[in-house]
């Protein structure tokens, strides 16, 4: 198998609302310049482009086609898109690199969540026959899962508040974070419920943003990056969309993806957990002990650009290899309701 590494990463600030369009061009142009400029290459050095975004989030058809304007796709490029978080676009690009036709790929995701009503838009990912017609909102569904874990003794509201406090504290070191600061779990627990047992701090904020990663193979990766984050395991798994049939207090697909990707022994993990209890659930599912630093960026509780946040987790994890602060890291992404689909990317540095 070819050796493939994350060699570049850039993301926009996570903000509550941008002035830009829902096709993401205004957010993407600066981060393409940043990531390509940082590597000392131009768009013509990229062999494959792949993106993740959603037309339902954008409220317009083929928004991902308009987004291609941000690339300047001339001469014509090879390009693909997934209607999922861009972490799955990264997986597609990785497979394409494994096939050996190309040596570099640029992956990007973008979402302007502020354009619509995110809690309702998210109902569009549910079973369109029997579930979407009830318009279950994302917070209401997550609340059911949170309560099941509480009543099974897997976590409690204090543990959930502590996850939020830890996220905001960690985000103090992340200049792109939307929410950061020193907060006390007791203060948070005094606030009202938004979807009992969830309070506002238990839910990732509504965020506009975009992220991009450059992948490169073999010698090309070594040429572009002093310490490439070599991908040693990259797996994704899915559970039944029928969430009434599965045990919501765990995530078999996260367990399976973590096991297959070789999550053991990582020093840093960036988890895509849009709700506080899901971070606790994922730590358990991926077997991450207390010795693992989880979400040093603050994670998505500090900023959750839809369809880019999972990709950004992999980028944030890779950064710890690039800057030499870690030797083995994990980036996780989720898609679908209640952690239905999970993706794990394990990366290592080499001397």
């Amino acid at each position, binding site marked *: 198998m070819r050796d493939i590494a994350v060699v570049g990463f850039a993301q926009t600030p996570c903000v509550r609302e941008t002035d830009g369009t829902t096709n993401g061009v205004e957010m993407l142009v600066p981060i393409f310049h940043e990531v390509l400029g940082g590597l000392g290459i131009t768009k013509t050095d990229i062999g494959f482009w792949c993106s993740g975004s959603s037309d339902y989030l954008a409220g317009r058809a083929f928004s991902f086609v308009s987004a291609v304007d941000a690339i300047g796709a001339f001469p014509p490029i090879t390009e693909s898109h997934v209607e999922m978080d861009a972490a799955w676009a990264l997986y597609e690009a990785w497979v394409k690199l494994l096939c050996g036709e190309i040596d570099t790929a640029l992956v990007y995701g973008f979402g302007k969540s*502020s354009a619509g*009503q995110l809690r309702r838009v998210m109902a569009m990912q549910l079973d369109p026959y029997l579930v979407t017609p*009830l318009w279950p909102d994302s917070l209401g569904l997550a609340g059911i899962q949170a*309560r099941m874990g509480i009543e099974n003794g897997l976590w409690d509201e204090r543990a959930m508040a502590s996850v939020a406090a830890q996220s905001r504290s960690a985000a103090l070191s992340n200049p792109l974070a939307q929410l950061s600061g020193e907060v006390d779990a007791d203060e948070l627990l005094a606030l009202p419920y938004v979807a009992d047992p969830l309070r506002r701090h238990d839910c990732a904020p509504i965020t506009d943003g975009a992220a991009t990663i450059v992948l490169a193979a073999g010698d090309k990766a070594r040429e572009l990056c002093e310490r490439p984050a070599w991908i040693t395991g990259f797996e994704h798994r899915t559970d039944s969309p029928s969430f009434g049939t599965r045990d919501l207090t765990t995530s078999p697909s996260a367990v399976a993806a973590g096991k297959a990707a070789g999550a053991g022994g990582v020093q840093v993990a960036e988890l895509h957990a849009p709700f506080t209890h899901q971070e606790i659930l994922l730590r358990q599912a991926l077997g991450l002990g207390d010795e693992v630093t989880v979400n040093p960026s603050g994670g998505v509780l500090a900023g959750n650009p839809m369809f880019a946040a999972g990709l950004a987790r992999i980028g944030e994890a890779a950064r710890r290899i690039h800057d030499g602060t870690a030797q083995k890291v994990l980036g996780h992404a989720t898609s679908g309701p209640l952690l239905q689909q999970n993706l794990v990317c394990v990366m290592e540095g080499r001397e």
Partner: protein
Amino acid sequence: MTRPLSAPLDVGFDYTRSLGPTLGRFLSDLRRRRVTGIRGSDGRVHVPPLEYDPVTAERLHEFVDVTATGVVRGWSWIPEPLEGQPLDRPFAWALIQLDGADTSLLHAVDAGSPDRMATGTRVRARWRNERVGAITDIECFEISDEPADPPTEADDVTMVTTPVNLHYTHSASPTEDPFLRGLMEGRLIAQRCPVCEKVYFPPRPACPVDGVPTTDQIELSDHGTITTYCVVNVPFLGQRIPPPYVSAYVLLDGADIPFLHLLLGVAPEDVRMGMRVEAVWKPREEWGPTMQNIDHFKPSGEPDAPFDSYSQHL
């Protein structure tokens, strides 16, 4: 800088979906105030019924009658319901395991207060009076240990209509904004790419060739050249002009991208590539931030443009 123009954008569509044998049976039965599950490969009874087993992926066939009463297995409380949800007053979302089922159905519980909700609470379906064969035939569940209303007769359904209505704020891009504001004043504002110097009208957020924002603003005249055209002979819903008429690509003088507009004032058989045209504006009091301020184009009477002058813009 002021924020770019924005406007509400409501997107709606009534999806019509064919149901097939499994969901068709389930929704036909809901219409009859009956609830039907299906037996999985492991013997579990799934409600709602699944077409394929979630573990073995086997096709499932064995329908099982269950009751419209059951027990809450998990719940959350919604203090402020959203559009389209089953109740417009505070309610609980719940996963409900109906008696006779082994898995849970998602629905709303009209509990009045979260204090009345608990995992293990007994609930029953509140049936809608007008049932059409949809999950919303169950209006919601209510806290009760009594049986739900008894079954009735009704015809089978094979389709379900599921309306989707979403609301957005659509923002113009920073380059579309001066274009739209210009139109309100009867001006045609284009943008030029600082790299390749191509002039875009309407402007785009970034030059699609160079991937850089188009920062140079220029004003164009309302005269141009027809690069190509078609004669519309087919009537369609919403058509504003009786066919035949001409839709033409107009390349404004100084622009590099033509746009589609209506051409009037000339018989379809007399239209030709290279024909010179000018804008016919609506009365000023009807102007808004829209290209519809130009009612149509008409021949300007100038001599035809030579082919070489627009051959790169086809």
